[in-house]
């Protein structure tokens, strides 16, 4: 690497256009909504910047505060499920024969390349009251009911099969979030397992720890960096997700992005929408800062 002073013209040629682009189309727009977030609607089309804090104060009113907690809660649950499901999946790829690995990874990656709207729409059809998931649950119910009547326990599972309501419930939204985010969680887990020095595991087994203890006391701690990355990479997009709660929540399980969208479309309250967007942005930064602190502490522990 050389100092920029040695070739100022070349440096400027590379730095100029990219910096300008980021300034004009990224920082300035964020700056504008920052200013708007301190504004007030004076008429239908006019916003006056009065440097009021009232838009931010509204965030802490019960309705919006509940919305934020719900967003954090649903994203958190989805992240935990992704890690629990993703870990064994990543492990099964990492321990597969070398020639299979690229293909197994591809199988997991391919849905990630498919359009998000199409994936959410696909899930919408699966989760309906007469959707395929309820078909499957119905079969299982019928089989269980048949078994129960064989042993003389008629009606153990109720009189009739009741389809499970997924759409418009938190359960449906979490299933959707997991569906969308799972490939993101698996990749960092897989790469942390690939980097792992397997002699630690051998040592643990040689010294008499069982499979179970080796898994929880050696493998999981050694892949903790991958777990943290996977958690962040799943959690952050989930926080800002719009389509999943919109289509699967049916307006009954709104997350923060849905309310932001409404401020800019139907409700036409740009100042409040701007304040909400920036608040979401700050929450994202806090999550990233937490990750940075965890990383730094891990690096410190390695050194000592």
């Amino acid at each position, binding site marked *: *690497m*050389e*100092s*920029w002073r040695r070739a100022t013209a070349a*440096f400027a040629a*590379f730095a100029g*256009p990219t*910096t300008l*682009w980021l300034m004009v*189309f990224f*920082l300035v*727009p*964020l700056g*504008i909504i920052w200013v708007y977030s301190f504004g007030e609607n004076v008429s239908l089309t006019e916003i006056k910047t009065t440097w009021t804090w009232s838009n931010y104060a509204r965030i802490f009113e019960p309705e919006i505060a509940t919305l934020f907690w719900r967003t954090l809660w649903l994203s958190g649950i989805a992240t935990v499920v992704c890690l629990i*499901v993703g870990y*064994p999946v990543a*492990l*099964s790829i990492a*321990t597969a024969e070398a020639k299979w*690995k*690229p293909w197994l*990874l591809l*199988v997991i990656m*391919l*849905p990630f*390349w*498919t*359009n*998000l*709207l*199409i*994936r959410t*729409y*696909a899930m919408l*059809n699966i989760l*309906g009251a*007469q*959707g*395929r998931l309820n078909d499957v649950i119905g079969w299982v119910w019928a089989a269980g009911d048949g078994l129960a009547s064989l042993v003389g326990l008629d009606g153990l599972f109720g009189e009739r099969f009741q389809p499970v309501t997924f759409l418009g419930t938190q359960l449906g939204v979490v299933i959707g979030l997991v*569906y969308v985010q*799972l490939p993101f969680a698996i990749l960092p887990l*897989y*790469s942390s397992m690939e980097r792992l020095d397997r002699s630690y*595991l051998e040592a643990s087994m040689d010294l008499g720890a069982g*499979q179970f203890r080796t*898994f929880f006391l050696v493998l999981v701690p050694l892949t903790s960096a991958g777990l943290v990355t996977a958690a962040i990479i799943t959690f952050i*997009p989930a926080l*800002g997700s*719009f*389509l999943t709660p919109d289509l699967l929540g049916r307006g009954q399980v709104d997350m923060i*992005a849905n309310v*932001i*969208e409404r401020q*800019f479309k139907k409700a036409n309250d*740009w100042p409040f929408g701007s304040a909400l*967007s*920036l608040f*979401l*942005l700050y929450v994202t930064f806090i999550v*990233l800062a937490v990750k940075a602190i965890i990383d730094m502490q891990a690096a410190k522990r390695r050194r000592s």
Partner: protein
Amino acid sequence: MSAGPFQYARKTSMRTMFLLATIFLYAPIIVLIVFSFNDSRRGGNIVWRGFTTDYYVKAWNNASLIEAFANSITIAVISTIFATVLGAMTAVLLWRWRFPAKPVYEGLVALPIVIPEICMGVSLAVFFASTGLSIPPEAPWPLNLGNIIVAHITFSFPFAAMVIRTRLQSFPPEMAEAARDLGATEWRVFWDILIPHMVPGLIAGALLAFTLSLDDFVITFFTSGPNTVTFPVKVYSMLRFSVTPEINAASTVLILMTLVMTFIAIRLQKPTEMAQ
């Protein structure tokens, strides 16, 4: 691998997990594709009423859907070109030079990757509406797509930069030195040595930018006008109205396109590298 560590991973329980996850990831998409052939207008995704390809014909004859599709492809192609060039410049800049406040700059470039899409969509919508720096919707095609293209370049070029920078890290500096010793100018070193080395990264970055552009809904939703609609935005408004096999048919076509593109990407690159 002999018996010992990771043995549990070779057990059927682990393989079952992989299988279940695969079913979870693919079943909805397969059901969607199957029901695109369902001969039922109302509630097309609920009861199977026999095989038909009518809805493909219908989707093909839906002029506004085809227009949205053409818009999506146009936006993806143009924004990919710009995003790849800007991404390559950013990658070279960060790889080659030391300069003041470099960590800040690196953070700034990574910012569009991490910030929630909705924040970016909202800020660009407000930007276009309030600065007058936007292209009027009555401009001739494809100029009227300008706002969306600008938005797509902004969110995709940092991704391209990331991919291209990874490729640059394997560049042997001796090559450039040898060329300079033999009298090549800086420009020739860049054009004849650095660029050819970057090519796989440029292709990977371009494919990523293209996919991101085709895939995007949220940011486009905020930057598109009533006459500048992309395929995802069109599908969204269709399915808000009613769910028909026509949407399944249109989706199936896009899924097939993605599959073809992914296989092109694999031919050019190993999937293990793609994962990193």
